[in-house]
């Protein structure tokens, strides 16, 4: 089975869209390389991060392992989320798991 992995640009746009729906307009001006907790303060607390992780999982059909994956690192900025998601999708495609 051949699976096409979305480009990093597409992943970036979809992640920004997912996060905007959960965090609101405060997120609009946050750069993708910014630390979300520093940029958003209490608007990006641990529980909001959990919601965003679930939303990204749902958007891309991936699973985040809270033990094996360093979620504090990978979900601290949009850029890191894009890298994490892209790698996870590439792994799935290589294994023929689809997305």
């Amino acid at each position, binding site marked *: 089975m051949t699976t096409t992995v979305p480009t990093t640009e597409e992943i970036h746009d979809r992640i920004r869209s997912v996060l905007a*729906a959960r965090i*609101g*307009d*405060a997120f609009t001006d946050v750069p993708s390389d910014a630390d979300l907790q520093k940029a958003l303060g*209490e*608007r990006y607390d*641990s*529980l909001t*991060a*959990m*919601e965003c992780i*679930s939303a990204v999982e749902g958007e891309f059909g991936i699973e985040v392992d*809270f*033990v094996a994956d360093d*979620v*504090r690192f990978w979900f601290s900025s949009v850029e890191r989320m894009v890298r994490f998601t892209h790698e996870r999708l590439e792994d799935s495609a290589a294994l023929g798991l689809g997305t």
Partner: protein
Amino acid sequence: MPDIAFATSGSTGPPVTWLRTEAQLRAEAELVHEAVLGSARFGRIVSYAPPGHLYGRLYGHELPRLRDIPVTGLWDEPLTVPPLDDGAPTLLVCLPSTWQLLARHLPALARHGRVTALHSTGPATPAAHQVAGRLAETGFRAHELLGSTETGAVAHRPIAGKHTGGVPWRLLPDVEVLPGTLADDGAAARRLRVGSPRLARLSGAEAPPDDWELPDLVAPLGPRTFHHLGRASRLVKVNGVRCDLARVEDLARERCPGLDLVCAPVSDPVRGEHYEVFYAGPETVDPAALRRQLGRLPSGLPAPRAVHRVPQIPRGATGKVLITELTAAARPAEEAEHV
């Protein structure tokens, strides 16, 4: 030993301090251990509840001290998975948000087979019922406590899978129920009024009250069992943090005069309960600006989950806000107005 202070947000005003004796704390930890947890011998307690609040203090400090049980405190790390590798019988002290984490680790919980979860500070979330249902055939057990900072734990029940319906609450052995105030709508529901040796003393008072009426509306079943029907007050608990919506409305109106503004309670899959703000007013006040105004509420009151501008606040003939119509009216504009 001085009494231990626990602050609440106050029912209608500024924060209130309630005092408990060491003996009351010990008694409650012992009672729940015996009556709810079956005097189980735990090899570890993992607590997600902050010890500055009564619930976290009781099961992340008092019970471990009484039974000499090591504690892993994760109240500042709600995304950290509980340690389950060594197979020790484990008590998880859960907040509403903890269940989203546990739902991600069902296989590990099932394999472990000796985990008991204690839940309080707000209604059990859909994830709690999902976890309980999925692990029903394993050694996993889950119990829910109902109570308040003023009363301590009042009643308990097992957390059941989502398809089993409402399980009745059972009073703890030292709690006595007294006739509570009838609900406004004239139904059989009454507010839950209780007496017990564990009622807290209001700071400045000489003694605890004889009894205390909680905001919870209940329908009696047997002499010591009841169904929980909701709350009479406008209190919500955002992941266990009490928030009086009437107080938030007063504060919001002070900061933004001229707005017709209402707080509506909403269920939240992570935090159990939350609230959203709806307002009608001048176009010059946009939801983002109001959201920023409400971002720093005093006394630890949680900020709203969302702010919505609506054409008008729908009200019935008596002036009562029609919450269902209000929330439905806002949904089509959610993408634009959810901030």
